């Protein structure tokens, strides 16, 4: 996400951060190579099950490797991955404030698109834009969620969090509230609670008590406060933390658990399916008992017991560089720099636009089988950052506009 934001809005990187990453990589490359050899030898010939007791950390030794293509723990056929077509693309010509779209969110008969120049709302076939002039915290809108309880729209921007309640904007930022940081990469509503992933840690706001809680490296198992994604499921909150993998927070016990890459910062996955693919995570999404995690180096699936990793070379994934993902029931949609991919964990549908025209293809992958369906038009652009689907309709946020597709047979 940070990379995207660099590309889109030139978010300043501190030289120290860049240096630190290099150091970590070199250092970890050496250590993990040795570790892998030792662990590989040790794990040869025997395996034991991970009890998931809630406080032990997922480790190479505790995560069983998945040998076959078939997903472990899955009996019977998985629901098929639908194909979306009849794409319609929206740009500034259609009323968007900017072609640089960061996110999309469907709320009944309206769709929110977060762009570089404000929040766009699509309703009754028209786009309406809201900016700081209307009270929005900042025009760079990177995340939107709607509270099912109150109908309030929570908007994560690059300059604070806005609550948009019945037309009235209220700003929460690091100066006027307990918000961790004004770079709000992700916001979600969970019952009466609002969770944010920000550049200064994850934040939890209780709309009843009006209290903020902040989770950073000071009080949670993170490497640094940068968090890019947050999702909820099964009474847990899953925070995608820069260099920290996934931080799981149990809202009942208030206990943390973290999932990190057993290979550390290595960009190759030495031991397949031994855990999360990489510690630099960009998003998490939980649905139907499955936690999906995106990184810049591939995508992971976790069913609470087994991890499964996906890469562009061994699956239908468009690219390992995944900016964001969202699971809708059994299907997850991964937004990458080279197209949009969707999967049920086994079979894939990936959408790619042609470079020279508006058309493209939907690539269906099932094991070795590959099939292409031409799409005219296709999605607006292959650099994708946001996605949301509901009732057979899929909305996609790309770097050259917003796309809407419908399920086709």
């Amino acid at each position: 996400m940070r990379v995207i934001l660099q590309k889109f809005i030139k978010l300043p990187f501190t030289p120290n951060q860049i240096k630190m990453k290099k150091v970590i990589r070199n250092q970890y490359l050496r250590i993990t190579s040795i570790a892998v050899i030792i662990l590989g030898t040790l794990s040869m010939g025997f395996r034991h099950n991970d009890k998931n007791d809630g406080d032990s950390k997922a480790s190479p030794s505790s995560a069983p490797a998945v040998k076959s293509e078939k997903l472990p723990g899955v009996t019977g056929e998985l629901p098929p991955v639908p194909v979306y077509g009849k794409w319609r693309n929206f740009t500034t010509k259609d009323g968007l404030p900017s072609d640089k779209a960061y996110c999309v969110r469907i709320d009944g008969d309206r769709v929110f698109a977060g762009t570089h120049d404000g929040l766009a709302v699509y309703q009754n076939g028209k786009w309406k834009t809201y900016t700081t002039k209307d009270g929005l915290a900042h025009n760079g809108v990177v995340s939107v969620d709607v509270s099912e309880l109150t109908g309030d729209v929570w908007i994560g921007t690059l300059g604070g969090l806005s609550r948009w309640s019945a037309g009235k904007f209220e700003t929460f930022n690091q100066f006027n509230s307990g918000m961790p940081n004004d770079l709000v990469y992700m916001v979600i509503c969970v019952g009466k609670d609002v969770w944010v992933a920000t550049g200064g840690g994850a934040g939890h706001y209780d709309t009843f008590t009006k209290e903020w809680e902040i989770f950073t490296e000071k009080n949670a198992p993170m490497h640094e406060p940068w968090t890019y994604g947050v999702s909820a499921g099964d009474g847990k909150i899953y925070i995608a933390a820069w260099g920290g993998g996934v931080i799981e927070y149990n809202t009942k016990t208030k206990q943390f658990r973290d999932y990190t890459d057993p290979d550390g910062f290595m960009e190759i996955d030495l031991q397949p399916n031994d855990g999360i693919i990489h510690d630099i995570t960009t998003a998490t999404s939980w649905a139907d008992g499955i936690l999906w995690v995106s990184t810049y180096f591939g995508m992971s699936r976790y069913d609470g017991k087994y991890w499964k990793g996906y890469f562009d070379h061994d699956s239908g994934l468009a690219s390992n560089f995944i900016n964001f993902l969202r699971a809708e029931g059994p299907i997850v949609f991964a937004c990458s720099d080279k197209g949009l991919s969707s999967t049920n964990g086994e079979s894939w549908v990936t959408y790619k636009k042609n470079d020279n025209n508006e058309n493209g293809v939907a690539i269906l992958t099932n094991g070795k089988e590959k099939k292409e369906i031409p799409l005219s038009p296709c999605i607006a652009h292959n650099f994708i950052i946001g996605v949301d689907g509901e009732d057979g309709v899929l909305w996609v946020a790309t770097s050259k506009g917003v796309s809407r597709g419908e399920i086709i047979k």
Partner: protein
Amino acid sequence: MKKILLVTGIIFVLGLIIFIPGKKLAREHVNLKTAVSDHPLLCTNCHLHIHKRSPFARFDQADYLSPLNLAVSNDGKLVYVAAQDGNALLVADVEKGKIIRKIPVGNRPHSVIVDKAGEKAYVSNQWSDNVSVIDLENFKITDTLSTGNGPAGLSLSSDEKSLYVVNSYSSDLTVIDLESGIEIKRLSTGNNPTGATLSPDGSDLYVTSRRADIAHYGEPLVSHLTVMNDKSKRIKTYLGMESAYLMENVAFTPSGDMAVVTLIRPKNMVPSIQVERGFMMTHGIGIIEQKEDGRIIQLLTDEPNAYYPDPFDIVITPDGERAFISNSGVNFITVVDIDSVRALIAESNPEMLKLWPDHLGISSRYVIQRIPTGANPKGLALSPDGRTLYVAEHLEDRIAVISTDKMETVKTIDLGGPGRITVTRKGRRLLNNAGRTFQNQYSCYTCHPDEHEDGLVYNMASKDMGRNITNTQSLRDISDTPPFKWNGKNQTVFKQDGMRFSTVLTRSEPFSYPDLDAISSYILTGIKYPPNLGFNPSGKLTEAQKRGKKVFERTKDNLGNVIPENNRCITCHPAPFYTNLKQVDVKTLAASDDSILFDTPHLNNIYASAPYLHDGRAITLEEIWTIYGKEDKHGLVGDMTKNQLNDLIEYLKSLRSPDYEGNSSKIHKASIHP
């Protein structure tokens, strides 16, 4: 005879010996306290009445009832009265003209409503954070429903399956599922909401708010009416009422073409250089047209030389012809002819509609009567046939029964409070009455609603205009925290409310000394903090508050360096009142301020006093340090992490009156469980 002469002489001489030096000392003492040289020298004037903890104080106590809001039974025979100080729901028999039942409820009952079948009454207990459900057959509490902080206005949903509770302190609306008795959601409302009324067609709930959105001095003043859709139970819209606040209650015309709110239009941004010509406060109504693109129109109920402050409740007769408004600051009910209002709106162009909210003469078009009442009329209720209006005479412990035909009080129902008026009670009446202000333009209550503060910043132009703007300070429980005013120039309340007060504020005759003694007595002994149920219900701090307490009391920064004593929170803000009563400079002086030191404010219930700092520049507690404390002169915060600052603020929000410490369980018991 000789003996008599001898004894008389001895007594006389002894009298002189004690009297002469004694009087001199007393005079000096009284002059110092009152800042005048002619306040009567009677020890009991003050010492019986201004020390809330003195044994004498009990002589000045009486258990008043203070009716606040009312509801009438469906057959019109009974009136249900929420007795704010009596912590009870009183049931009055209209025909007998007396109270037939007294049902103890929670602390500080605010409102009462009755269901359509007349079987249940719901009473909001503002200081208990719950609602008492009362069976009206046997007058027993059958359930107690938890709410948000400071439940006030109540309404049932159109299908009566849900109860809507306005949380006046936490500024939100609780929706309770009556089948399970559980709060299913809490919706954000305007600031400090109070009244709630469902539209006649049951489609929308209107919720008033008393405070304007907290804003910096100079920014437009806007208060928001919250409109919730009854079916979706989601907020439909927030209607901005410009240049107005203290919207206490709302009523609909039976036809549903208008919603009408009571409101006050303050002039806090106009230099306080005169009272004449409405330069300080005006009072009126806001009309919300109930149609597509309906307008919001404001009209004053004042007149050019006569003001009718502190409008509280409003009811409209079933025939839709008249609205009755209780003007609690002048003991009058204002009667408005609704058709005249419609006619005025119809014939006014947009410029005229923009003018009327600032026009004192236009009220002669629609105000048709002023009906006098007893002290401090608050809640109103009409009989089902609309022929009788019941008025809660808040500080009279009485219900006035007004004939809406004759437009006069035809009888009163005594609620059975103590017959006598104590000095403190007299002071409370004075504080709530505008009679001491030129042309009755405003009372102390107007800027200090509920004896607290109104969240506004005023240009008190005691010298040059446009300078020395000040944030209204609360009157709650200030007896232990002299001196007063932001600059701490008034060492006592007697001085604060004395001659200068009348010269620059009320601009009318100063309080007589008996009145000054009475109002001082009330301010110093009669105004309590609400329990801090929102942030500190039991005195047991949360983990974050405990961490914040450590930060508050810290003597070393995060690097282990010793923080200079004068830059520690605890130094200037020590318990139990969280002030050292001294004047200091925390580098918050503005260019438009005269060079002064600021009196260290007390911090109990500080969560309820936004905005912050002397000129209200800090909209939230956080801003005191994130924006205005960067120089580290108002406590050392530069080294703090955001987590620490959050913890500190959570702790500050937990601070409450020492009166609640040690007996927090008592506060809890206020919430009655059947």
